[in-house]
């Protein structure tokens, strides 16, 4: 049998084309007759009415083909998210989902809102014409905080972002589903968290701030759209969610799915930013205005900044109550978010923040509220972690503080009180099936030298103070049963006994294509080279919800496995017929199917595959040679669980107490992967996630001027950690708790990587200076100010 490829450090299937620069991203596409589209956006205001649009000068620019405005496109409002496909309709209604965005807008609700579109024969002509379009604006007051938006919404005849949302309250949790508008549970006597605080010996309460962070995927959003001669709308995009986006486009332009073809190009990073529609509606609208001509539309980096979604910023209030011995009793919490200009994901990420608070520790009662107010900021949406980074930043700092103040060992406390097998996960009614957290904690502590460092840094003087911090997390593998997790795979056996997997797998760079190929090879017992994954074309692939909620391997892998098992089964069945044996007695090795213990009695799978396709008639006998029919395996798989993975992260920082600068010296992250099919990919997720987590906690946030315009819409002013800023990161893949439900034992790793670094660095700073910095990012400015105001404590 071909040697197993599971767990092997093999090169990724798509690495050669990437390392030579031959992988094609949407912006790399060139097509005959191609035009260039440019969305004209409002740069000068964050809130304004469009009074007049004058295209006359722009239309005179040589090379301009057409300019389209709000009246030239569908006026049907839409929502960027694919959420409504993931949940039953009633859910959307209960949560208050709305469609409040237009392709081109007459009211600007944030800087970067789309006004109109230019189509030209060159990109430069489109750019020049765009500059000549005269838009007359009537500026409106900007609302940049929850308080301002709320106050305005409360006024009689106050300004409303949308009449669909009274008071500018974009969302909160509906009372009908969530008593007290809280997600959580009451204790066994029905007491709420609030009611239990009176029974606590130790209560802490605090408010934290979490930043508006940008995904900063390196490939800017780019599209080619083409309304072709068959009246089909074709779109090439690097969306993370090809199938749902195809459906949303079909709905928006009122076309049947047969007339919308979506092709996913190589994805230059996603991290959630491509979790719904971004520029697809605009690209399609422009293409439909010039039938027969493909239109390429490539965002500028500065455009990416204002015209695609961000993390949800806001304040998280937490109140936690414990017994003297550390027994967790009650937690009450509130996440108050700035929504930005549009509804998009609504309560999604804040709700999930509540969910991940729910999934972590064994409280007797827990309740978390969420609310979001519209603001004139770039809209918020999905970003890797989806609420979990935010709640981890706040909650893990609280837990560490409690342990310090009650004199408890924080590793042991977390071992004892985290939810485990049989306990409810982040989602009510769904229980943990595996738990590797204690092992993560043990291996991380050993690798990191936790206790040694704890002792060593207990008493420090001097300008540079070291500190160590810990945070644990649990996440999810797909979002079943809250969300639909459906994947379809067809495995087609070619006549040469190689396999074509036809399956939509969104590989954002995560290694998904490699891992799916490995899983297919393993299931079939074929070499990797004999498997080819065909993905990306909606004309060809069955349904797949896309890449969200760390689901791909966990939810789509089983479809691959099932489809390949079916191919194998059919091969064995045919062999059984031809060999006159029982299927149960057969085995397949190196594509030879033989009777166990009797290798002479065998037949080649290659022969079966070939004869299935080239099923000739034997002239001598008049009968067919072999068994007819090309073999195909098929699976339409619905996930059965969400097997949350755990993780434990420890980091060490050095704080310069004279300047407030924080340097992360090293980081150890133990991750409960269950089974790592392709270890380098898992490590890659955790290493890369650390860079984003450290950015969240140390440097990254939008800055606005007083008029609501983004001050840092480039990498000069929005700062991510670079190669020399990154600490040595040691990633440990813990495989001691393979998941009984996940395919081959796997749990997810895509989003898990951010939480640990965020919580542990915050705690390490706290350890170093004895002061908690409750606002992320923890900048030197904040650290120094805190030291000045509160004095060093240790």
């Amino acid at each position, binding site marked *: 049998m071909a040697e197993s490829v599971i767990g092997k450090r093999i090169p990724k299937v798509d690495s050669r084309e990437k390392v030579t620069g031959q992988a094609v991203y949407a912006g790399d596409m060139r097509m005959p007759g191609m035009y260039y589209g440019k969305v004209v956006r409002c740069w000068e205001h964050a809130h304004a009415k469009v009074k007049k649009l004058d295209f006359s000068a722009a239309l005179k620019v040589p090379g301009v083909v057409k300019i389209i405005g709000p009246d030239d496109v569908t006026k049907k409002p839409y929502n960027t998210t694919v959420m409504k496909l993931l949940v039953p309709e009633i859910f959307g209604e209960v949560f208050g989902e709305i469609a409040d965005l237009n392709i081109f807008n007459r009211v600007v609700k944030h800087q970067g809102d789309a006004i109109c579109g230019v189509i030209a024969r060159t990109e430069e002509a489109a750019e020049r014409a765009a500059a000549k379009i005269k838009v007359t604006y009537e500026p409106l007051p900007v609302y940049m905080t929850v308080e301002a938006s709320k106050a305005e919404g409360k006024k009689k005849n106050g300004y409303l972002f949308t009449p669909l949302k009274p008071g500018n309250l974009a969302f909160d949790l509906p009372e009908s589903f969530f008593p007290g508008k809280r997600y959580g549970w009451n204790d066994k006597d029905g007491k709420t968290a609030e009611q239990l605080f009176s029974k606590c010996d130790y209560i802490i309460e605090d408010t934290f701030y979490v930043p508006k962070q940008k995904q900063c995927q390196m490939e800017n959003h780019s599209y080619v759209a083409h309304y072709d001669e068959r009246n089909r709308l074709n779109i090439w995009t690097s969306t993370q969610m090809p199938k749902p986006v195809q459906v949303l486009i079909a709905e928006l332009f009122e076309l049947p799915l047969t007339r919308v073809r979506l092709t996913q190009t190589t994805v230059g990073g996603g991290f959630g930013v491509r979790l719904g529609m971004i520029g697809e509606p605009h690209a399609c609208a422009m293409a439909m205005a010039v039938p027969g001509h493909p239109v390429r539309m490539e965002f500028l980096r500065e455009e990416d900044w204002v015209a695609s979604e961000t993390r949800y910023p806001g304040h998280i209030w937490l109140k936690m109550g414990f017994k003297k011995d550390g027994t967790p009793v009650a937690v009450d919490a509130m996440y108050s978010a700035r929504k930005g200009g549009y509804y998009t994901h609504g309560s999604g990420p804040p709700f999930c923040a509540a969910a991940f608070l729910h999934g972590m520790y064994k409280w007797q009662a827990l309740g978390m509220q969420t609310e979001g107010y519209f603001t004139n900021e770039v809209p918020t949406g999905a970003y890797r972690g989806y609420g979990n980074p935010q709640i981890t930043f706040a909650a893990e700092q609280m837990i560490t503080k409690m342990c310090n103040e009650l004199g408890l060992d924080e590793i042991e406390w977390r071992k004892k009180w985290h939810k485990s097998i049989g306990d409810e996960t982040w989602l009510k009614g769904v229980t943990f099936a595996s738990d590797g957290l204690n092992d993560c904690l043990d291996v991380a502590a050993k690798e990191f030298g936790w206790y040694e460092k704890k002792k060593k840094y207990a008493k420090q003087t001097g300008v540079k103070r070291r500190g160590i911090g810990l945070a644990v997390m649990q996440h999810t593998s797909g979002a079943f049963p809250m969300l639909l997790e459906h994947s379809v795979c067809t495995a087609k056996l070619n006549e040469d006994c190689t396999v074509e997997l036809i399956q939509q797998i969104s590989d954002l760079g995560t290694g998904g294509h490699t891992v799916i190929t490995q899983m297919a090879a393993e299931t079939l017992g074929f070499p990797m080279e004999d498997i080819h994954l065909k993905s990306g074309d909606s004309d060809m692939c069955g349904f797949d919800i896309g890449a969200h909620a760390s689901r791909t391997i966990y939810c789509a892998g089983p479809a691959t496995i099932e489809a390949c098992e079916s191919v194998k089964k059919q091969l064995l069945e045919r062999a059984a017929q031809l060999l006159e044996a029982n299927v149960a007695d057969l085995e397949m090795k190196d594509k030879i199917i033989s009777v166990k213990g009797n290798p002479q009695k065998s037949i080649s799978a290659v022969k079966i595959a070939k004869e299935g396709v080239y099923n000739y008639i034997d002239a001598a006998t008049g009968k067919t040679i072999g068994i007819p029919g090309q073999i195909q395996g098929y699976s339409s798989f619905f996930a059965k669980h969400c097997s949350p993975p755990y993780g434990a992260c420890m980091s060490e920082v050095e704080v310069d107490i004279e300047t407030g600068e924080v340097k992360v010296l090293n980081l150890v992250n133990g991750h409960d992967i269950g089974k790592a099919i392709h270890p380098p990919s898992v490590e890659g997720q955790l290493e890369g996630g650390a860079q984003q987590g450290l950015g969240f906690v140390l440097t990254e946030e939008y800055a606005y001027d007083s008029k609501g315009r983004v001050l840092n819409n480039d990498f000069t002013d929005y700062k991510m950690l*670079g190669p020399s800023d990154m600490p040595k990161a040691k990633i440990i893949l813990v495989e001691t708790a393979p998941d009984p439900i996940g395919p081959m034992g796997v749990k997810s790793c895509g989003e898990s990587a951010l939480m640990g670094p965020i919580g542990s660095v915050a705690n390490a700073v706290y350890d170093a200076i004895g002061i908690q910095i409750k606002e992320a990012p923890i900048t030197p400015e904040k650290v120094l100010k805190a030291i000045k105001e509160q004095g060093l404590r240790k």
Partner: protein
Amino acid sequence: MKKRAITLTINGEEYSLNVPVHHTLLQVLRDHLNLTDVKYGCGRGECGACTVLLDVGKGKRKPILACIALAATMDGKSITTAAGLSKDGTLHPVQKAFVDESAIQCGFCTPGMVLKSVSILEKNSKPTEEEIRFGLEGNICRCTGYAKIVTAVQAASKKMAAGKR
């Protein structure tokens, strides 16, 4: 002048071009010549996705940024892009190391990252980890956290040293 006739050698091939003077080298490579292995990431010199290696004679090359170089000022110059690093299907040792170490995720930064790594090793065949990291500044990768890229450069350094011996 509004346009300038230049000759530019790209990956060993000489091109005679008539370029608008305000066009960047990046535009010329991507839009005039369809050499899309050179990427646009920021257009402001910060991300390194558009990195190319400029020949400076005596077999030496140094990394520059195509997004802020005016093509019209590059008459007679010779550059290498990621596509030009591999020869007849054989990857450059640095490319090979990126593949072997899984230093590639979405791949968008990769062409620039590989060229940058080549330049680091051409300047200093045995860089320390710190030197590699500092040398990689200016090439942003949002996927990998740089860890496997650093490992790949180290691996390539070892391989190339062994190859020379």
